[in-house]
């Protein structure tokens, strides 16, 4: 089977917008997330702000490492990479 990155979302987002795990094409976090949001456009605004940056209290991991480029999402994603979109712990 062809390898491709997978994108999973925090359970907390599911209450607002359904975001099932997805296998997508993409060499960077931006490309992978764009692919997810293309088929689930409503989810985009829950993860990214209108400038395309990761929302202030959201975090994105690639294989367990927090992405560094929250603005342009240029962090590379391996062919079998696992992207996880989570909430930052804030607000208590």
């Amino acid at each position: 089977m062809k390898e491709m990155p997978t994108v999973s979302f925090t359970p907390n987002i599911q209450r607002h917008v359904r975001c099932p795990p997805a296998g997508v094409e993409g060499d960077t976090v931006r490309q992978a997330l764009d692919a997810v949001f293309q088929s689930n456009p409503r989810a985009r605004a829950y993860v990214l702000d209108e400038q395309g940056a990761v929302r202030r209290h959201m975090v994105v991991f690639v294989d367990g490492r927090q992405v560094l480029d929250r603005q342009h999402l240029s962090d590379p994603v391996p062919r079998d990479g696992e992207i996880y979109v989570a909430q930052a712990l804030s607000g208590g």
Partner: protein
Amino acid sequence: MSDRFLVATRKGLFTVQRGDRRLSPWSIVAEAFLGDNVSMVLPDPRDGSIWAALDHGHFGVKLHVSRDRGATWAEGSAPAFPPKPEGHEEVEPAGQRPIPWTVLRIWSLEAGGDDDPDGLWCGTLPGGLFRSNDRGASWQLVRSLWDHPKRKEWFGGGAEFPGIHSISVEPGNSRRVTIGVSCGGVWVTEDHGGTWTCRADGMRAEYMPPERQFDPFIQDPHRVVQCPGDPKSFWAAHHNGVFRSVDGAGSWQEVTAQPSSFGFAVAVHPKKADTAWLVPAESDQRRIPFEGRVVVSRTRDGGKSFTVLSRGLPQQHAYDITYRHALDIDSTGDHLALGSTTGNLWVTVDQGDTWQTVADHLPPVYAVRWVSG
């Protein structure tokens, strides 16, 4: 006369309805968005739609609408900034933080007038005013205000960034819109948002250096309301006190209220511009009710004198503060609803002479709004 109002709170939206029972005639009859932060609600008098602005924190600001009086809701288009130009840098003057081109909070929502049947206005933090020409199907940033050089001098009051909390659409002439900004004064457009003028002459900011105390651009109105039946009349609860205007915000006169002039909320009678209600707190430095007693202060003579109203409100060890949108008056001018930071909710049907408790364990109340009809 309205027998129904909406309550936007830190953890949900509630509908209050007058019932038949004599002893407890007002009660919560519906709830929505339980657990979610509802920053503003708008019952659109033109078609009965209800708009609810949610601030999900992690997931951003959303706008939901109900077309069936709150029975069901759907997420709609939310105001959003256009792409920030490459290399554009701008900081909030007080804290020197970069101004994000991101809607951080929906702080005001108003319907266009009868002569603007599809129009909606939305004020936000960090200071963007948005306009919908299609009843919320899409939103556009009002660039004439956002690009105004003086807008860039707006600064945050209690919040990190400035915000537009008040929008008054003039009855019968929806081309004239007045907004209140914390902090940035009062702004008026006469041409439906094409051009804007700051109209805060006479407002005074004691907390600023002497040479800037009357600078209209740095004023901090907490809430600005317009008398629908006498649209040249405005009232403002200001950080520095109470102000009113009788010339369409052309000039403002300071009013001394009782028991203090510090507060956030103000309501004006829909027809009698001299009649207004305030919810005074002790002072800027101690934001608690005066002597731990919740009171509402009413004037019927344009602010020359005030009657302190307390019947039905807690009179000892009460530390409720009323946020700027948590006082509203219905279209008759007899019914007022009042909510507090500590989750109390009261209603009066006699212009504040007596108050009835509707609930006392709600989440912090951000806004109350009467539903017309």
